C-alpha cells in the first residue's frame, strides 16, 4: 500500500475512534463542579480529531509519489501465531515443557527460511534447552517470580 493511502486510512480510523469516544462519554454522568468523567476523554478525542484531519489535509497537499509500504510477511504471522499458541498452552502444560518447543520451533522456522535448516537443527536443540533453563533460573530463583 502507498503511504498516502495509509495516511488516509489512519485518519479515518482515528476519526471513528474519536466518534466512539464521544458517543460513549456522552452517557457518562455530568460532574457538578469537577467537570465530570467525560471531560478529559472528550478533550483527548478532540485532539485526535484535530490531528487526524491535519494529517489528511497534509497528505492531500503533499506533491509527488510516495513510498510503498510492504505488508507484513509470513514470518510476522507465524511468530504471532506461535506466541499466542504458546501463551494459551503454557499455563496448562507448564513453562519448562512448552518453552523449549517454542524456541526450537520458531528458531528452526527462521533458520529454514534463511535456507540454513540443516546447519541449525542440532545447535538449536541445545540452545533451546539451555535458554529455557537460564530463563527459569533467572525468574524463579534469582527474581522470586513463580512460573507455571
Amino acid at each position, binding site marked *: 500500500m502507498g*503511504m498516502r493511502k*495509509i*495516511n488516509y486510512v*489512519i485518519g479515518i480510523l*482515528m476519526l471513528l*475512534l474519536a466518534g466512539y*469516544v464521544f458517543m*460513549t*462519554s456522552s452517557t*457518562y454522568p455530568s*460532574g457538578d*463542579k*469537577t*467537570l*465530570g*468523567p467525560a471531560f*478529559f*476523554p472528550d478533550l*483527548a*478525542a478532540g*485532539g*485526535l480529531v484535530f*490531528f*487526524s484531519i*491535519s*494529517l489528511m489535509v*497534509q497528505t492531500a497537499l503533499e506533491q509527488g509519489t510516495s513510498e510503498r*509500504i510492504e505488508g*507484513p*510477511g509470513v*514470518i*510476522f504471522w507465524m*511468530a*504471532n501465531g506461535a*506466541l*499466542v499458541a504458546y*501463551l494459551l498452552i503454557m*499455563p496448562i502444560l507448564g*513453562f519448562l515443557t512448552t*518453552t523449549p518447543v*517454542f*524456541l526450537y520451533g*520458531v*528458531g*528452526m522456522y*527462521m*533458520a529454514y527460511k*534463511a535456507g540454513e535448516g540443516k546447519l*541449525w537443527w542440532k*545447535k538449536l536443540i541445545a*540452545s*533451546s534447552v539451555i*535458554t529455557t533453563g537460564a*530463563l527459569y533460573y*533467572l*525468574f524463579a530463583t534469582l*527474581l522470586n*517470580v*513463580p*512460573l507455571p
Partner: protein
Amino acid sequence: MYDHFFLGLQAISSLEVQFFILFGAVAGIAVSCLPGLSATMAVALLLPMTFGISPVSALLLLSGIYVGAMFGGAIPAILLATPGTPSAVSTTFDGYPMAKKGMAGKAISIACIASVVAGLFGTAVLMLVAPPLAEFALRFSAPEYFSVAVFGLAVISSLSEGSVFKAFISGMIGLLLAVVGQDPMTGFERFTFGSSDLLGGVSFLAVMIGTAALAEVLYQMDGGNKGQALEKFEVNDMGLTKAELRQMVKPTIIGCIFGVFIGIMPAAGANIAAFISWAQAKMWSKHPEEFGHGSIEGITASEAGNNSVVGGDLVPMLTLGVPGDPVTGIMMGALILQGLRPGPMLFAERPEIVWGLFLGLFISNLWVLPIGLFGARFFAKMTTVPKPILWPTILILCTVGTFASEGTMVPAYTVVVFGFLGYFMKKASIPTAPLILGVLLGPMTEENLRRSLLMSNSDWSIFVTRPISLALLAVGFLTLIWPWIQEWYQNRIARRLGVEVPKE
C-alpha cells in the same frame, strides 16, 4: 543535604543493590552488542524483573542498563560500522575507520574511557541540578503541574518520524488509554467494557513492553536478514599512549558539556547529543581534517556526548515527572509500579531513593571501565549471535516477564495485543514513543487540569495568570517548536562540515 547524602549511601550499601548495579551495567553492554537491540528495548524487557526487588535496586538496575548500553553501542559501531544503539551512530564515523587502520582495540579503549568520564560528569551535574530544581517545584500546585504535563506532552513533536501529526495521533491514543479504568476524581468506570480486568486501567507495563520491545522484535524479524556487507574487525591491542590520552582531553570536555545540556532538554536524545558533540569537537579541533577518517578526538567526543546525556536525561524525569525520552519513560514506569511518583515530593519524602540513585549511578559508570576494557573481546563475540537463537528468546522474555509480574495471563495477552498494534504503527511510520508518553502523563494531565479548573471555577485563564505556570507553558511552546530549530541548526553545521546528519 549531607543527611540525604548519607541516607543514599545507606540505601546502596547492601549486597543486593551492588549486585543489581553490576548486573545492570553488564546487561546493558551485552544487550547493546546484540544485533538489533536498543537501550529502550533492554530496559523495557527487564522492567518486569524489577517487581520483586527494592525501589533503589530497581532504579539502579535500569539506569545501569542505560549507562552500559550507551557505551556498549560503541563496540559494534567500531568493529562492524553498525551502531549497537542509535546513539552510537556518530561513533561509527571515526570508530570504523580506526578499526580499518588496525586500531580497533585502541578505539574501544578510547570509547570506554570517554564514556566513563562523561558518565561521571553527567551524574555530578544531575546531583547538583536536580535537588534545587525539585525544591523549587515543591511550590507548584495544580495549575503548575498541568503546565508541566503540557510541557512533557510537547516533547511529542520531537519524537516524530516524518509527520508530526502522526506523532501527536499516537500521543492522543496514549492519553485515551490512560483514561481507561476508574475516574480518579469520581471513581466512575470509563471504557472498561464491563471487564473487571480493566478496572485498574490498561496495564502500562504491558503497553510499554508490547510497543517498545515486542513490536520492535516483530518488525526486525519481518525485515529479514539484511546482510552485513562490511568486514568485521577483531579486538586487538587496547593500550593507549600518553599522547593519545592527552588528545582526548578537549573533546571529552566538549562532549560532557553538550551531552548534559542536551540531556536536560527533554526534547533531544542521546543520538543528537553525540552528533552535536562530534560536530562541535570538529569545529574546535586543530585537526578537523582527520574527523571521519579515524580521529581519536571524534570518537571521544561522540562517546562522551552520548554518555553524559544519561545524567541530564534523569533531571526532568526525577524532578518534574516528565520523561525526556523512551528510556527514562520506562524508568518512570518502574517507579510508578513501585508505588512511587517521580517529582519534587519524591525528593522530600524518599530522599534515600533519589540519593541512592545518584550515588549508585557513579558506581554503574565506574563499573563500565573494567567491564568494557577487560570484557571487550567477549562482548565483541556477541555482535554475531545468530538470529534463530536470539529472536525467539526475546519473544519469550517479552511475555513471560509480564506474566511473572502479576501472576495472571492478562498482561501477557495485553503485551501481544500491543506488540501487534505497535508493529502496524511502525509500518505506517507512526512512532510508538508518544503513546508511552501519553499513557504515563495522562493521569497527571487530567487530574491537575480538572483540579485547576475547580480552583478557578472553570476559568482557563488560571494557567496564564500565575507566573510560574505561564513560564512553564512558554518552555512547553519552545519544546514544541524545538525540532525545527534543531533541524535548522544540525543542517547548518552538517553542511559546514560536509557530513550527513544521522537519522533516528
